[in-house]
């Protein structure tokens, strides 16, 4: 009995030793377009985010033994693909800002830095005070728009009216989801003002979603419940009132706990521009949707807190 146990442990130890030699490299590419911000902001990102989200990765001794190293390496490469602060300066300003807002969202939900990472790197913990510093910084780089010209919005509107209420049949999303053409006849369930990207939004729900709201069956939402979130670029008039300007996009969440079990129980799709171009190079675009909605496990991955009274 003891001999068997000893043998098992020995085999296991030898295997562990053997795999130590499978050690793919994890180079730090040059820092080409480093994140620029106030020193106190940058300091927080340096100590909490840069180890994975930059080309300045510093491993510590316990990151080296296999298999820990494999996992750490995988995480770093994945993190850099998502957002790399050493190269962020190459992105358009709006995209940089969007990445920072997503970051503060992930931080605020405790999803970032990854809790297991913080457990081993306590210095990476982001305090509430740090969050306030980051939020104040984001507000400072997101000023309200002054009065904006309406030419593009007006032109788009004229064209839309001229083509009447023709039903749109754009190409399906890369994951095969067809455009829910009837969305514009669904009922509003909320609206949002997005000061992070100067869009004004409406969230509409189909009949199943409206019934679920009336019956307060929204966690989880029933299969078939579908939301359309419509975003227009903000158009600020001379009266300082903000109205929808150009149509920017419409995106959908379609609840089906079985069919979409691999993507949080929701089907995801988005069409951009008045010509409704499907969003995403290939079906993997849903990783983006899922990555941002995943921290909302308390609310069945839904951002909208619905208004009731439609029935």
């Amino acid at each position, binding site marked *: 009995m003891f001999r068997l146990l000893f043998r098992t442990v020995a085999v296991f130890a030898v295997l562990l030793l053997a795999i130590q030699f499978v050690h793919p490299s994890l180079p730090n590419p040059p820092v080409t377009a480093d994140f620029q911000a106030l020193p106190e902001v940058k300091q927080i990102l340096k100590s909490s985010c840069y180890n994975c989200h930059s080309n300045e990765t510093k491993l510590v001794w316990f990151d080296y033994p296999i298999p820990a190293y494999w996992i750490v390496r995988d995480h770093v490469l994945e993190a850099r693909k998502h957002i790399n602060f050493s190269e962020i300066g190459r992105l358009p300003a709006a995209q940089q800002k969007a990445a920072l807002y997503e970051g503060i969202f992930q931080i605020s939900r*405790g999803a970032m830095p990854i809790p297991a990472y913080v457990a081993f790197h306590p210095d990476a913990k982001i305090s509430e005070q740090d969050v306030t510093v980051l939020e104040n910084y984001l507000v400072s780089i997101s000023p309200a728009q002054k009065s904006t010209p309406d030419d593009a919005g007006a032109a788009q509107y004229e064209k839309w009216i001229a083509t009447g209420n023709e039903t749109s049949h754009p190409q399906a999303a890369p994951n095969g989801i067809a455009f829910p053409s009837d969305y514009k006849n669904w009922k509003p369930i909320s609206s949002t003002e997005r000061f992070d990207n100067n869009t004004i939004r409406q969230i509409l729900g189909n009949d199943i979603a409206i019934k679920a709201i009336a019956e307060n069956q929204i966690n989880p939402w029933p299969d078939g419940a579908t939301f359309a979130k419509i975003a227009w670029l903000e158009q600020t008039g001379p009266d300082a009132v903000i109205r929808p300007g150009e149509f920017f996009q419409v995106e959908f969440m379609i609840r089906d706990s079985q069919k979409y079990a691999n993507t949080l129980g929701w089907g995801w799709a988005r069409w951009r521009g008045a010509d409704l171009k499907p969003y995403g190079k290939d079906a993997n675009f849903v990783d983006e949707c899922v990555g941002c909605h995943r921290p909302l496990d308390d609310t069945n991955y839904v951002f909208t807190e619905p208004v009731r009274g439609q029935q």
Partner: protein
Amino acid sequence: MMCNSLIPASFAFALLASAAFSGCSSNNRVAPLAATINENASLSAAESSALPANPLKWRIITSSIDPQSSTMSTLYGNDIAIRYARSNTNHDYPPGSQIALVTWTRRDDPRYFGAKIPDHLKSIEFVSVDELPGETKFTYEKFEGSPLAKTASDESATPSQSAQALLNQRAAVLP
């Protein structure tokens, strides 16, 4: 001999680390979110029955945000009004049209830093267009407060200034 005990110990640690890294990323450090209805912004059945109509049953014409009064509004229309607003650049709604502007105060979105959402339902304004023998009648009514009570009303052959402000709003593009 020390090596013999140290190496497995460090492997065990590495395994532990791996397990932790690959384990769940539960959000245990932050307060949970409530999956609730936005009650303050909602319209109860009792309240809507005291109104000329329940605009939340209707479809959307457009929306607006007024940073000065810190409010956000949605303009709804009944079927006749929607059909007109989505296919005409003029603002001469046909008889039978009803539109309603629902206004909320606004608050920070607890689920996303970067967004503001409806807080309390503040007011509902209605404009109805009716055909009378020989003339068109425009009715404007405003309801405010909690519970909603009528605070203004106006009937005339030409729209009042408040009514016109609603009728003039351009429909938001919905391709």
